[in-house]
């Protein structure tokens, strides 16, 4: 049987589950706020050229450190660049960081955790000790070390953040796996001759997915903050890239007289990381197995 033969029957199930999750999220004000902010962020990133009022890179030295108003919504920075436009384009960088980190971290954490939990024995010991080593460092310090070794750039910052944020996911996936590795449906899969690899991929990972998705969403706030921190220390996005953390770093010198230089990107970081936290909380309720039964 080909995939096409049964996908029409399956797709509505997936879609309706997705619709249910969205409906559930919109019912509670906090997760609805999170969802709205993230929707705005995504739309802003996609439509940046149309939303931005100015070119984020054009300098105008006759017009530096202008307060908000006068044709510049959030004022201008020390080189006369429009802060609003830079924030809008910065949304693209933020989203790129979040997306790439999640795409790398999710699968690595899932596979390491599920393998350690299911196979057990020496495999578990080796994988978990490696995880422990990564967890023993504060994540910002470890990413600092990685970026310092790889050289400062946005892509290296993404790699460094990914390298430091998979261990909690792996721990979580392992703990989840341990709770059902002895379940009858896993035993049934073994009796059907499924290889350990097949059991991990087809039976265990789908069971771990909801909690890992929640954890990843909650993690995104940390990722944004770490990326901003690296940007602030000059190890993330390099000038003139409009990365929010880097904007705060350069604005710091003018902070006393021109508050808008740091306040605007600061509020943007705050809103987005708060939104991901609230969305993660909402997802935890929405993906709760007890809720699943109602669908």
């Amino acid at each position, binding site marked *: *049987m080909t995939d096409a*033969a*049964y996908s029409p*029957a*399956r797709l509505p*199930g997936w879609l309706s589950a997705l619709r249910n999750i969205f409906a559930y999220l919109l019912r509670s004000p906090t997760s609805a706020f999170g969802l709205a902010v993230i929707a705005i962020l995504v739309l802003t990133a996609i439509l940046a050229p149309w939303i931005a009022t100015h070119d984020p890179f054009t300098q105008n030295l006759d017009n530096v450190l202008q307060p908000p108003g006068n044709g510049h919504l959030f004022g201008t920075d020390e080189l006369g660049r429009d802060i609003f436009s830079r924030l809008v384009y910065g949304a693209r960088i933020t989203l790129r960081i979040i997306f790439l980190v999640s795409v790398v971290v999710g699968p690595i954490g899932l596979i390491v955790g599920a393998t350690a939990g299911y196979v057990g024995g020496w495999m578990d010991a080796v994988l978990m000790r490696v995880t422990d080593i990564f967890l023993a460092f504060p994540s910002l310090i470890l990413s600092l070390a990685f970026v310092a070794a790889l050289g400062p750039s946005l892509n290296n910052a993404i790699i460094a953040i990914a390298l430091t944020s998979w261990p909690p996911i792996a721990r979580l996936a392992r703990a989840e796996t341990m709770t059902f590795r002895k*379940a*009858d*449906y896993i*035993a*049934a*899969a*073994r*009796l*059907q*001759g*499924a290889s350990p690899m*097949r059991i991990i991929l*087809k*039976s265990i990972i*789908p*069971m771990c997915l909801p909690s890992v998705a929640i954890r990843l969403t909650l993690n995104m706030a940390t990722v944004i903050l770490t990326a901003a921190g690296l940007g602030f220390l000059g190890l993330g996005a390099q000038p003139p890239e409009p990365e929010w953390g880097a904007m705060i770093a350069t604005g710091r010198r003018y902070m006393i007289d021109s508050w808008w230089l740091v306040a605007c990107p600061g509020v943007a970081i705050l809103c987005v990381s708060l939104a991901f936290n609230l969305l993660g909380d909402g997802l935890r309720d929405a993906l709760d*197995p007890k809720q*699943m*039964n109602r669908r």
Partner: protein
Amino acid sequence: MTASLEIRDLSITFGEGPDAVKVLPSVSFSVAPGECFGLVGESGSGKSTVLRCVSLLTTIWSGEVRIDGRDLRGLPLKQRCRLIQMVFQDPYGSLHPRQSVRTTLAEPLRIHGLDDHEGRMKRAMIDVGLPVDFLDRFPHQLSGGQRQRVAIARALILEPALLLLDEPTSALDVSVQAEILNLLARLREERGLTYVMVTHDLAVVDHMCDRFAVMLHGEITEILPREAILGNQATHPYARELIAASLDYEGRA
């Protein structure tokens, strides 16, 4: 397709030397092709452990298990899967909660590279008395009895000769129990399957099994034919006590 089962000195021991703990001292019995063999006994007497050993879900046993005269441990995995399948006690825990019935049934077919998936799945559904459009349902959309039927369909889709039944009805409603037992009896008749059935319930043994073994503390006290239940013809004191208690209960009920 049918197969005999022969178990000789099946035992599980933890530790070595004088401190060794025998969990399952020694179990021996044989089941003829097409027979239904019951294992009864109190909780913790090792009934389910015997099934887990025969299915190789537990591998730390010693002794000999032969299927159709062939050594169980010597059989390649895929061949073994097509000879032995198992139906578990709890239909709420034995189906993957995120897989539809279709996925549950298609997985073994894919693993073994069998052809005609759609046809085989449809036949399996019809065989266990479920409508074919239940294929697209998920376990949480099914009742306990329907789930157990799906579990039986999953076990039978690889066309095994020997079916291990681990209290297949104890988690079900009384009215559904009878349906499942009748379904199992019909399938055995149609396909000549060999059953090894663990149960608490002597009434189930009386309904289904040709012979049964009474287990106590990991040992078989006595192997009796079904007819021995009614007059309580057991000779071992524990088996007598068990059957007497059951008859007493049935009589009062």
